[in-house]
């Protein structure tokens, strides 16, 4: 029982990331009708916003300590960050909380990235076949990841969660299990609640604001909304920015869980597309549901007990489930008729 609970918890944080990325992907697909293969890159860029914010905070002045030597026998360089020199203990606090601070930075930055991406490139492919859209966005993804590699190198760059949230909770003890039975890192729990909050915010925005209502109307019938004198394209562009921000924030918050590296976007991309197809193309609730579901399933499949019966199942479980669901429900869990069908 405790094992099962542990794997459900474990699946939640991965599922949260899937859900957030897929949510952004579906928003873009639902509004602009574009299959955005560069979407994983937005997640990666978000994670690198965390890296950059921390790098900026760590800019230091260098003094030489003649009493100690470096590896070449020369005086050792001592670095002190400017932020600590200027702000003292508040500076130290800011460095400690660089990831949450980066979330705030990521919102405008990622929206801007989204606008540039949409206005600069994707706009020109609205009336082209999906194959072209896939190729150009996939190409963009490769370009973005190579740029990041050029500047940050190929190795992962670890990002620490704030000291106060980097421990682990013995959740099992609260629920009456033995000590050490269900241990769960605090930051992953925070990630889950963060994801729930963002998802709730996006749904509320679409459901309860006039802007959201127009966007939803546009998703159903773009032409009619346009005929009513509403500039739907501008709103859709804004939705692209919002989707980029949601995915970027997901990346920032994920940085302490998975050290950012240049290929993390590609790694998530394939899985999120499976999530989209399982959830149903164009369905926002489907995307969220399938995200959490596949995250938890993946977690269960990597249990030793399961792997000893079905070796290698952890590598194929998601695709296996996707096949079964598409056979049983060809439109995915919550897909609607008419989406991506002739």
């Amino acid at each position: 029982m405790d094992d099962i609970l542990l794997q459900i918890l474990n699946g939640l944080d991965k599922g949260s990331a899937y859900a957030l990325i897929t949510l952004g992907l579906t928003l873009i697909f639902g509004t602009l009708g574009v299959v955005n293969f560069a979407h994983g890159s937005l997640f990666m860029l978000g994670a690198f916003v965390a890296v950059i914010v921390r790098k900026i905070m760590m800019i230091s002045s260098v003094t030489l300590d003649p009493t100690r030597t470096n590896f070449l026998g020369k005086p050792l360089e001592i670095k002190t960050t400017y932020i600590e020199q200027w702000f003292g203990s508040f500076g130290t606090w800011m460095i400690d909380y660089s990831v949450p601070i980066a979330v705030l930075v990521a919102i405008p930055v990622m929206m801007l990235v989204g606008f540039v991406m949409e206005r600069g490139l994707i706009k020109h492919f609205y009336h082209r076949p999906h194959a072209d859209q896939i190729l150009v966005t996939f190409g963009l993804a490769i370009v973005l990841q190579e740029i990041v590699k050029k500047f940050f190198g190929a190795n992962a760059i670890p990002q620490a969660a704030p000291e106060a949230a980097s421990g682990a909770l013995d959740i099992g003890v609260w629920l009456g299990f033995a000590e050490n039975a269900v241990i769960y890192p605090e930051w992953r729990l925070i990630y889950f609640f963060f994801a729930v909050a963002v998802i709730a915010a996006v749904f509320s925005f679409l459901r309860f604001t006039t802007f959201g209502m127009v966007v939803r109307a546009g998703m159903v019938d773009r032409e009619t909304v346009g005929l009513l004198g509403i500039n739907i394209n501008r709103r859709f562009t804004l939705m692209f920015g919002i989707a980029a921000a949601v995915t970027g924030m997901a990346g920032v918050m994920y940085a302490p869980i998975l050290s950012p590296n240049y290929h993390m976007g590609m790694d998530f991309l394939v899985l999120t597309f499976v999530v989209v197809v399982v959830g149903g193309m164009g369905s926002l609730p489907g995307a969220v549901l399938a995200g959490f579901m596949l995250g938890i399933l993946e977690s269960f499949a990597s249990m030793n007990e399961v792997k000893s019966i079905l070796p290698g199942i952890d590598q194929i479980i998601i695709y296996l489930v996707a096949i079964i669901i598409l056979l049983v429900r060809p439109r995915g869990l919550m897909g609607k008729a008419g989406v991506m069908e002739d």
Partner: protein
Amino acid sequence: MSKLITSRRGLIKSGAAIGAGLATPTIFGSSVWAGSHGGYTNAPTGSTVTLGFNVPQSGPYADEGADELRAYMLAVEHLNGEGDGGMMNTFSSKELKGNGILGRKVEYVTGDTQTKSDAARASAKSMIEKDGAVMITGGSSSGVAIAVQSLCQEAGIIFMAGLTHSNDTTGKDKKANGFRHFFNGYMSAAALAPVLIDRYGADRKAYHLTADYTWGWTQQASMAAATEAMGWETVANVLTPLATQDFSSYVAPVLNSGADVLILNHYGGNMVNSLTSAVQFGLKNKQVNGKNFEIVVPLYSRLMARGAGENVKGIFGSTNWHWSLQDEGSKAFVKSFGEKYGFPPSQAAHTVYCQTLLYADAVERAGTHNPCGVAEALEGFKFSGLGNGDVEYRAEDHQCFKDVLVVKGKENPTSEFDLLEIVEITPRAKVEYAPDNEFFAGGDLGQCNPGA
């Protein structure tokens, strides 16, 4: 919106086409070893000789590959008589005079292995066929090393392996044209186990997480055998796919398994991520079975330690070489590398630098680039002054035998490079094994192949 949309089938088809395009190996066919002179493949005829440096320039091990490439360029400089000569001055063999190899200026070409066997074979093949490379060296993965080694065997080219730590490289997959300076999983385990038992006691239960490919398998088997022989019990061994990014679902059940030691048979990015997960799950400061829970990383590198940050503190592992060694060879190498690039070299850089000098020296001693002559000169070759004490290239399996370093993540690093401290230098005698050892059995060197 329906205007924009073609069909689901179309989407899936295009996606599949892109995927297939990415997965297709880039090997191109042509008559492989034609156009050679002098009785062996790519015999140099002009005033230059070309070496092929096959390192990961993209993919997850690209930083390791970049460091290898720096070391190769340094070695070429030194061979051609530029720079301060580095370890050529401390090398026990005095054949290298700084006038290239056999009087020919050393040039090089580079290939990108991408840490993928097929890409590595394709780039090695291209360097041999198009660029006329007379020797191939490099790599940062055992899967790649084994694949390229067998290609070089067929091509009649000497392969001087880079960073490869699987027992199989000089075990069941050994080849007469292939030589490995780097140590291996068995040697890591033999050096590490006594230290672990000394620090953590003989009554321990170990849980292994293991990268699911040749290196992980042999590393895990070696560690399990060495620790079990000294009293430890192996609770579980879970294989993790090489592509795993988030190890939380593998790490989560560890505490509840009754184990009190976690052994991470992971390398590079895998190790960084699995160790980070383990620390996040609080493993480093838990008590199990009345003892402190411990984590062990059998194969360490400084580049990995940098990736894992704070998490490596206090964690034991082994390494082939470390820049803080104080012998003359290491000091000379650190100095020339450090002054050229501004930071100390990694163990990957060290091993490939040594391999380049060892090859050049063997050619000088043999008087030819002919792989059979070079192999004969390297087999049983004893040397020192390259940073690992007295070393021997064993004739039976082309494995170098030398001291192994047991290291620990440093508690109070003084700089960003000062991440590992050397706990013990395990003498060569303690890590040596018979050529027919069970972990290395099954292979056959075969005959040297000069190609052409």
